[in-house]
């Protein structure tokens, strides 16, 4: 039995989980760093407890502090969300040792899948196809460089350097030819150390023209392990997914069942429990290769929820409480697309942007879901990941879903902070996106010299007119309440007296 869930995360995924807790009738605890006081997710929990400390290491990554809050406030389960401590086997173990339910797989499963090199080897042993490449065991910089240079000859170009502890594109480098290899190794290693405290980097062949297709799996403690179909997440910039959909446009029933079987095998190989994702590269000839397994809920889980009708977070809560999963037979219906709204300048190499959300008006209407942790008036700071929201649409068919996404993006108004909304909107008009011929190189291929917005002179003129009218009429938007004491002195005493007339 679980009664109180501590959510060891922030932002939109914390909101997602806290709402699921509230719907499941569970009490919830949010934890928040100083710079998150007032963030939306803190308002959705039964109680919100401040974290002491300035850096992420001192707050959201601070295992001891989080465990002591869990003990003090009586949490009997911890949901890690994604990122932060979600794939830290030592934290999962510490949670379990403290007598608290860990909403996720066993520490052993996290460990085996979390180290990308170990995962490759485990999968090879289990008979799941892996990408041609080589594990590199050395940790010392000089040895690593020479080992990788050796391996690169065997693997061939173009190749990918990947941090063994990596994720989210951090510590990853694409290398086209040997001249840039050494600089790339150094950069990947440095980024990996900064992000994960582990500089190990390995080499994989870069399979150009292939699709990123991943299978959602769910396993309960009653021996049931199922897959919930696939998501295609080929469209990526800087190895960050930006456009995700389900089903994959080229999927067939036969391929889905082969990939689903491989994913279930992968999960069973590590006695997996809970929700997880097995990522594959799908080559244009229909061959697929294991990439990695994410042992947590994923950013793009909503597209699976929209097409399968399964509430993945709710199932996570059920499974952690020892109940059997509630899913019946797999029933995939219609088409779902998610785009990730980042505070970033798509016209300038996707550099993260900051600023106030002076206006934040999300589109509404049937078939539209917005998962976000921000609202109008919030400030986008450089402290955390620049993802502001996930916009998800569902429609009976893929063309209708794309049409709905275009309409939704056109209606989405975010002012005060640069975002990639327009980039996403134009992506929906790309020929290959429309036909479903998406692969992991799409963005580089379509915009080799970077993307620039395609607005017409007449739109710009209209915008100039709007600026002139706004300026003339004094439409200076009030961003926050004017909080000032308006009258009289403030009493040091407080009372509430009723009198009946």
């Amino acid at each position, binding site marked *: 039995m679980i009664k109180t869930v501590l959510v060891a995360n922030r932002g939109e995924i914390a909101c997602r989980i806290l709402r699921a807790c509230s719907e499941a009738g569970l009490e919830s605890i949010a934890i928040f760093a100083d710079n998150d006081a007032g963030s939306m997710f803190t308002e959705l929990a039964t109680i919100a407890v401040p974290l002491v400390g300035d850096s992420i290491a001192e707050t959201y990554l601070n295992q001891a502090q989080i465990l002591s809050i869990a003990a003090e406030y009586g949490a009997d389960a911890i949901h890690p969300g994604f990122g932060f401590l979600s794939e830290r086997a030592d934290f999962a173990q510490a949670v379990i040792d403290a007598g608290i339910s860990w909403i996720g797989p066993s520490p052993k499963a996290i460990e085996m899948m979390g180290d990308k090199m170990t995962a490759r080897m485990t999968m090879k042993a289990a008979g799941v196809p892996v990408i041609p490449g080589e594990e590199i065991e050395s940790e010392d910089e000089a040895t690593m460089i020479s080992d990788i240079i050796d391996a690169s000859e065997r693997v061939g170009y173009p190749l990918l350097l990947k941090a063994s502890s990596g994720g989210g594109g951090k510590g990853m480098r694409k290398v086209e030819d040997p001249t840039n290899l050494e600089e790339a190794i150094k950069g990947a290693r440095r980024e990996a150390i900064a992000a994960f405290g582990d500089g190990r980097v390995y080499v994989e062949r870069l399979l150009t023209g292939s699709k990123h297709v991943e299978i959602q799996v769910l396993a309960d403690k009653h021996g049931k392990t199922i897959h919930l179909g696939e998501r295609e997440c080929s469209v990526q910039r800087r190895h960050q997914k930006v456009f995700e959909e389900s089903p994959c446009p080229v999927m067939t029933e036969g391929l889905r069942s082969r990939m689903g079987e491989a994913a279930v095998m992968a999960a069973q190989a590590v006695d997996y429990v809970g929700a997880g994702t097995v990522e594959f590269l799908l080559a244009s000839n229909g061959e697929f290769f294991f990439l990695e397994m994410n042992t947590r809920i994923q950013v793009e889980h909503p597209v699976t929820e929209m097409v399968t009708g399964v509430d993945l977070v709710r199932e996570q809560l059920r499974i952690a409480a020892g109940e059997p999963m509630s899913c019946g037979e797999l029933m995939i219906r219609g088409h779902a697309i998610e785009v990730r709204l980042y505070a970033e300048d798509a016209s300038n190499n996707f550099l993260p942007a900051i600023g106030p959300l002076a206006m934040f008006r999300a589109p509404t209407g049937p078939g539209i879901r917005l998962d976000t942790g921000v609202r109008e008036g919030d400030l986008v700071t450089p402290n955390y990941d620049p993802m502001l929201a996930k916009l998800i649409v569902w429609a009976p068919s893929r063309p209708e879903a794309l049409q709905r996404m275009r309409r939704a993006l056109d209606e989405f108004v975010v002012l005060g902070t640069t*975002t990639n909304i327009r980039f996403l909107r134009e992506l929906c008009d790309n020929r290959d996106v429309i036909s479903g011929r998406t692969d992991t190189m799409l963005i580089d291929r379509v915009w080799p010299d970077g993307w620039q917005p395609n607005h017409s002179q007449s*739109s710009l003129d209209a915008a100039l007119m709007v600026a002139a009218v706004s*300026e*003339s009429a004094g439409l200076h938007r009030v961003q926050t309440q004017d909080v000032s004491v308006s009258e009289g002195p403030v009493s040091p005493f407080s009372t509430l007296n009723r009198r009946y007339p």
Partner: protein
Amino acid sequence: MQHEFKVDGEMVEVTVAKDGQEWILGNHVAIISDNGRIMVKQPDGRTSFAHSAKVGDTWWVHFEGHIFCIEKTEAGSIDNDSDAGMTAPMPGKILEVKVANGDSVEAGQLLLIMEAMKMEHRIVAPDDGVISTVNFSPGDQVQQGDVLVEMTE
């Protein structure tokens, strides 16, 4: 009413007229709705709804799915912005500096690498030129807008 704006590196002088509730520019008409919405009637009879918000000196305008950042400048002022000064796009830390004073660089050449939001970002030269000043060293913290490197052409 006359205003001077800067947008996409271009200076534009806009004079709007007003007739009752209607603002007029050429054959466009705009009417102010509430809550930051502005109705724009186009010559072909279509109406669109623009949204605007001012942050600092910049008007952010959303129009038909496009977003424009339009800087209000003082009328008659000259554009003395040094586009050749590479500024920090956000707070972060300098990781590597690849150039020194006096170096000739080509457009697109890597000048320095900074870290922000746990990712590395490459700052490249916007044009060909000669480096005149390097303001930071590896390990330095920088704030958004700090000029990192200055160049002459």
